[in-house]
């Protein structure tokens, strides 16, 4: 009788890819809930759109590429991509924004490169950039925090707006975005960028209703919620500390320095760290293992590079937020970073 043959090791740790993806998604829950609390139900609808399109696109691509469908579909990676894109786009963005973005992320950024593990760029961020440059108006039409909104939106109104562009009462998205004074509400970073360019000082900008004690209303708590999720991932050892720490550290240090040098001309460190995609990106976007650096030293460099790029673009560039651009730029440098940050191999002496 012959025995069954197998290659060592015969025992394996039970942390499968699907489980890793699921854990990351669950870590997003606090952030999503906070987002929904401050900015309405739109985020749920966007999640539903993006995740279902992601699954469908993944399925179609796998089928077309003649790849094992069940195994790849159940690794949850497509769902995670859909989720990350959904929380990145404005909650009331038209439905096709999320659909196009997800289609692009899965079909072109991921599957066209060979599927999971083969893509150079972070699919969610690549899709975000595509949408931002293609549909700048839709992509920047963020609602103000609910407390500032004149018109209350129920779930049906939200769905209607996303699908048709108008609420059931016939309000357009533009009208929804307007404050009591009839002025369109922008995101904190947007407002700062606009106002600083318009000649206002930073402190004058802070007096806008979207700010609350020097922090963006709503945005601050959303960032905190994502921070909590990120810390959970760190604790679960799903992600490594190097990238978030070096990213946040670099961005924080640079904004702190500019704040000290030019307090009127720039947003504070706290505002930078708690506004926009900073926290979310630090734990959920930058840590995407596929497109990030893989060596420990490399991860530090990678995080710092993105922090630096975000600062540069926010400070001097045309876009209020810059995480997506910075991530894509850093993605390109990953092979180089990995190559030059190889650890010293055992027994090879000092390198």
């Amino acid at each position: 009788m012959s025995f069954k043959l197998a290659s060592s090791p015969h025992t394996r740790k039970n942390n499968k890819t699907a489980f890793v993806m699921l854990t990351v998604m669950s870590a997003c829950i606090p952030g999503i809930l906070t987002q929904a609390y401050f900015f309405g139900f739109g985020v749920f609808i966007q999640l539903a759109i993006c995740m279902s399109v992601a699954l469908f696109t993944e399925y179609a691509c796998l089928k077309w590429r003649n790849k094992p469908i069940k195994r790849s579909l159940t690794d949850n990676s497509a769902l995670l991509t859909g989720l990350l894109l959904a929380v990145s786009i404005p909650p009331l963005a038209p439905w096709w924004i999320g659909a196009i973005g997800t289609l692009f992320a899965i079909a072109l950024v991921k599957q066209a490169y060979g599927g999971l593990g083969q893509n150079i760029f972070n699919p969610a961020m690549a899709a975000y950039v595509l949408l931002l440059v293609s549909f700048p108006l839709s992509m920047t039409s963020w609602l103000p925090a609910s407390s500032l909104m004149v018109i209350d939106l129920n779930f049906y109104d939200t769905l209607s707006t996303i699908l048709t562009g108008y609420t059931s009462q016939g309000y357009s998205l533009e009208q929804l975005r307007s404050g009591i004074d009839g002025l369109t509400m922008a995101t904190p970073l947007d407002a700062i960028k606009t106002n600083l360019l318009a000649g206002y000082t930073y402190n004058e900008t802070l007096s806008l209703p979207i700010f609350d004690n020097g922090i963006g209303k709503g945005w601050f708590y959303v960032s905190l919620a994502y921070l909590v999720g990120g810390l959970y991932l760190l604790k679960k050892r799903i992600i490594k500390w190097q990238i978030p720490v070096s990213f946040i550290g670099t961005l924080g240090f640079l904004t702190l320095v500019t704040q000290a040098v030019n307090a009127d001309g720039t947003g504070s460190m706290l505002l930078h760290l708690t506004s926009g995609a900073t926290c979310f990106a630090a734990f959920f976007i930058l840590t995407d293992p596929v497109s990030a650096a893989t060596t420990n030293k490399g991860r530090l460099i990678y995080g710092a590079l993105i922090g630096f790029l975000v600062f540069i673009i926010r400070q001097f560039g045309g876009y209020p937020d810059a995480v997506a651009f910075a991530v894509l730029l850093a993605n390109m440098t990953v092979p180089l970073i990995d190559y030059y940050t190889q650890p010293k191999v055992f027994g090879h002496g000092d390198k």
Partner: protein
Amino acid sequence: MESLLEKIKAGVLWDFPGGVHPPQRKKLSNQTEISLLPLAEHYWVPVKQHIGAVNHILVASGDKVKKGQALTAFNDKMSVPVHAPTSGTIGKIEPHVSAHPSGIPALSIQIIADGLDEWCEISPKIHFRTLPKSDVIGFIQAAGVAGLGGAAFPTHVKQTPNQPCEILLINGVECEPYITSDDRVMREHADEVIHGIEVLAYILEPKLVVIAIEDNKPEAINAMEAACAGKANFVVRVLPTKYPAGGEKQIIQVITNMEVPKGKISADIGVVSQNVGTVYAIYKAIYLGEPLIDRVVTVTGENIETAGNYRLPIGTPIAHVLNHVKHDNQHNERVIMGGPMMGFTVLNKQVPVTKITNCLLIPTQQELPDAPPEQACIRCGECADACPASLLPQQLYWHSKAKEHDKAQAYNLFDCIECGACAFVCPSDIPLVQYYRQTKAEIREANEEKIKAEKAKERFETRNARLERDKQERLDKHKRSAELRKQSLNTDQSAQDKIAAAMARAKAKKAQKNSTNDITKTDQNAEPNTLENTTLENSAVEKNAVESNISQSNSPIKNKAQEAIARAKAKREAKLNNNASTEEQNTTAPPSHKVESDLDHSPNEPVEADPIKSKAQAAIARAKAKREAKLKNADATATNSQKASASDSASQKEAEPKPENQRAATLTHDSTIDSNNDEIASTVSPIKLKAQAAIARAKAKKAAKLAEESKPAAHSSAESDKTTLEPKTAADQTDEQVDEHLQTSTTNEPTEISEAMYQTELEIDPIKSKAQAAIARAKAKRQQKMAEQASVTQPENAKAEANIQFDAEAKSRAKAAIERAKARRDQANQLAHGGETGSSSITNTTTASSLDSESGNSEDENANQVKAAKVKAALAKAKAKRQKS
């Protein structure tokens, strides 16, 4: 180093990078004492169980052996013997399924147990301290002790390090999950282990002995600490449990914070490490005198109800173990030899326990499920974090999968210790270690191939260089000898003829070989040579031109050379014949035979310059002959007014039919080659035959003509003699054509040449052979003519005389000449009856000549004798006539 020892003594521990924490599951098997199993019916002891050389087997099938008796010798420094695990009879000695992942059969000795389990004579060395260290090392080697931790590295080799040993590290870490054999040995045989360590310490004299144990073995730690109590420089170090802390390099790093440099061994940094099991075996070898015939094996897994440690004789088949432990027989579909991290699945139940078998793991499917299908690498870097060698497994995997061996090596693939930590943590279930093993094997194979290829290339280049050298030497030699020949020719006139003949022979040899080697080449060369020749000879004597045409078109070099020989000889013979008897002909005949046999067996030699040279020589010779002929012509006008007047114009006239002749010759030759294409085996000889045949035929016709014309006038025979040279080539043409040619040629050249001969002969010409040949021909013709002139009524006799001279001189030509003579006679006879029948006789004679010239058989001899007789008669007549005239 001193401070390091102090730190170690103080309890400082370091860490190694990476590492994983697989479930330990040691409780399954470490709760019971080491027990024994009943004797098996037979044991299979693999001959080679260690890293190192293969041993010589000391026993033969059918021999009786006692327990502990050595089965193999151990002459080599790197080898250790194997011993009989029990008493009994030697059964088969043959390849048996091995304890290797592949199960590849390995030479093994079967011992059929007699059940007595009788020990051979054993001699304990309790007082080893009184013995020289080398003797103690020898005892360890003789006892067959090899590293029981995994690699089976011969233990005695480790005991003779190049560097003084600072630290003796006793490895009781046992980091692999499930395995508890070292654990149980330390618990139950702590004192014996300490004794074993003392033996090693006696040999190595280390400054510190460190016994390293993972913290998951508290009982073993206690036992060892108790056994060490009061012993100076014996330290028990407790390591945090982390796989693979038990790896030699990792344990050294943890204990000493030193890395074993790449390509070195631990002894190079002053650390000698030994496994607990090995130390226990050393104890038994020295204190009890028992060789290594058994070892403690953990038999475990959830499929085994009576999991525990068993003292199993080396060679015990797994089937025997499974028969004596309680287990679920339905589900023992996998048997892992070793632990779950680095162990391998064995092929079947017949695999024997060996010196490195520390565990037999028979798990259930739930316990250690089969590896799920591999998924895409998400570059999470878990593997890199787990790698104890600080490699980048994801990069190694990437390049291994892509078969980019260079890059895999650039990422230090060969520093992988295959611990399996990377594959253990991989969330995508990629069998990383398997990829690395495979790539390593491929690289090793490729390197071997490369070395082989390089050696082959080297051999080839050396050979080429040698051949080139040889060729150069040969060329130099030839050049030297050629110069010598030239010199001697210049200085020694009397030897001219002989040398010329020798040179001609040598050339003929070369030429023969050349044409033998490449018929087709000859074929291709034939025409251009002919044309070239034609241009050279525009002003030369036509006769020669035509002759050379024929010879060239048939086999340019060879035939020319042969002709040269023949001519040279003919000349000499002609001279001789002038005042000597026909006996001389016979004496000269044998050499010509020799020449031919030489031609047939001449060695292969480069002869590039030869054809040109000989052509040139021929041209010069001809030119001279012509000049002489002209000179002579002026003198001869009185006697041969017709010939003299025609001499110059004839040469011009002859130039016209030449191309035609050439064509004809080429045609003849082509057809010859064509017909011979099927008979490749016969190489050149057919060509030669044809050439000779053509000559013979032509001459025969000439003779026929002569026979006709000799009656009306004496000078017309000379004329026809000249014309024969053309019909030679046109032999395949109709007789009418031949006649036409004959009519166009109205030369009296032979006379001229006959005169020229004397002049040329006297000259000291470096290019002798051709000239002499030409002279020879001329002479022959003169002879002929003289004969004709002497007796117009008996032309055939006269011809015979002339031709017989050829026969005696040069085999090939001579034969043809004989046949010619015959032919002429026949022709003459037949002409009397009717012309056409002559052609058949010509064919016959040519065939005969061809055969003769080639085979040189007895018929040839007979023919020669007959001809000789005739010749004598003819000569006598001719002489008589000449004297009269």
